[in-house]
């Protein structure tokens, strides 16, 4: 008998691939070597001799970081050949719950401060640092069959509207945005994470959905994006922290510095994330 549900299903394990290695390696080695090196010689000898990191680095990251962290992991592995980065993506709240339940992760990157705070409150992480911001956008299927023009259209009952459930960060941001704009949305489904909303729109099963700007960008021409007013209370700030019980603390610290540093800034910025 197969059972219907597996709580961990949304958290897909993914090994970062080494695509674009040569350019990335040069870039990363230069950045890490030059910014972290105590002396000019460090630049010439490269990062590998600087800090010979080894082992597996397990990063739990919000689903909205999928594309950027995949790319950063490839750069990081190129700079530290001894390290194998394993990324687990999922809804921030469910990742936080897994960490609190004892999942052996090294680093946690959440999509909002509240979920990180839950991990901090449990005594499992300290000193989280903000590394990116994200805001919402309306996405519609290509061709915009529902003739959606703005937030007010999300209240039209005849449209199929997909939103994140308010218990997950993209959902609380959606509530804040709709409240601030005085729109009472008529959602047909409240999904468990932002990628599920995007999928519903991509498949044409929803006429409109609210997703992060970065998810809209990553979906490319499979969806059309419609800008919404910038509302400060609806902007998500992404914190990152090494975990107290990290099996690989050295690599965890290096990863956090890497994401906060110029490499992380460049990749995140290119994907549409704002600076903290």
């Amino acid at each position, binding site marked *: *008998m*197969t*059972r*219907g*549900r597996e*709580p961990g*299903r949304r958290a897909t394990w993914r090994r970062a691939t080494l695509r674009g290695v040569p350019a990335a390696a040069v870039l990363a080695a230069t950045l890490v070597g030059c910014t972290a090196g105590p002396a000019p010689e460090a630049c010439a000898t490269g990062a590998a001799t600087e800090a010979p990191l080894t082992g597996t680095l397990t990063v739990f990251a919000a689903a909205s970081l999928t594309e950027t962290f995949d790319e950063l992991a490839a750069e990081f592995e190129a700079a530290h050949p001894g390290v194998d980065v394993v990324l687990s993506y999922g*809804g921030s*709240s*469910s990742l936080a*719950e897994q960490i609190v339940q004892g999942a052996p992760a090294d680093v946690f990157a959440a999509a909002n401060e509240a979920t990180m705070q839950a991990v901090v409150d449990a005594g499992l992480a300290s000193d989280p640092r903000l590394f990116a911001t994200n805001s919402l956008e309306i996405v519609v299927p290509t061709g915009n069959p529902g003739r959606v023009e703005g937030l007010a259209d999300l209240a039209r009952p005849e449209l*199929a509207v*997909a939103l994140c*459930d308010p*218990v*997950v960060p993209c959902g609380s941001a959606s509530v804040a945005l709709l409240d601030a704009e005085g729109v009472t949305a008529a*959602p*047909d*489904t*409240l*999904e*468990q994470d932002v990628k*599920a909303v995007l999928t*519903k729109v991509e*498949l*044409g*099963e929803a006429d409109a959905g609210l997703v992060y700007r970065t998810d809209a960008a990553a979906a490319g021409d499979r969806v059309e994006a419609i800008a919404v007013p910038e509302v400060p209370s609806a902007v998500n700030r992404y914190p990152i922290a090494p975990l107290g019980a990290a099996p690989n603390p050295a690599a965890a610290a290096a990863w956090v510095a890497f994401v906060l540093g110029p490499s992380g800034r460049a990749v995140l910025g290119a994907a549409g994330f704002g600076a903290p």
Partner: protein
Amino acid sequence: MLLIPALLGLALLVLPLLALAVRAPWGRLGELLTGDAVLPPLLLSLGTAALATLACLVLGVPLALLLERSAAWPLVPRRLLRALLTLPLVLPPVVGGIALLLLLGRRGLIGQGLAAIGLPLPYTTGAVVIAQTFVALPFLVFAVEGALRSTDRRGELAAATLGASRAQTFRLVTLPLVAPGVAAGAALCFTRALGEFGATITFAGSLPGVTRTLPIASYLALQSDPEAAIALALVLLVAAVAVLVALRDRWLPGVAG
């Protein structure tokens, strides 16, 4: 020698459920079970699972008869039929949900026609029932088929020689003979439908009161109120155990017939 792996296997199956019972918020249980977090999804689940069971009975009993008759068919179509009926048992339910979307979704092969006449299926309670029926149907078919195979068919022959039509024979002779198998299959269907998650959330979505069933509510509650999630899981567990204990051994899947 074999006792140790057997006990380990039993422990693997039972201990997680025991942990669930141990960690259950017994003090808050009454309040949780009657509160807004549990009661609406519980009622929705009971209603949709009952409808799905009814659909399984209407579609599954004739299908079981067909499957039993297929014993006289050539090898390839016979095995193909059995394989097709087994698929929902082994397929990840999410895959079933995607397949249902591609057929019955607002842009699906059949679904776009339904949407055009103003009857879109996704995001409706009907979609929940369809998803549950999809995953539960094999349980009924195999339980009834097992019962059919183990019954003495001479009664049907006698009825036929006494002038009963095929429909009369089925209604008055065959059906009463396999009634325990039908009841057992229906019970299994009901528990499977009650626990359905993947196909439902993919095909029907998740909206409180409309499509958010007990397992989906439990999954979401885990992110905000873990105690409510455990209470929801406990309800599912108790329902499943109650149904299975009520069944006799020989009607359980795999040993039927």
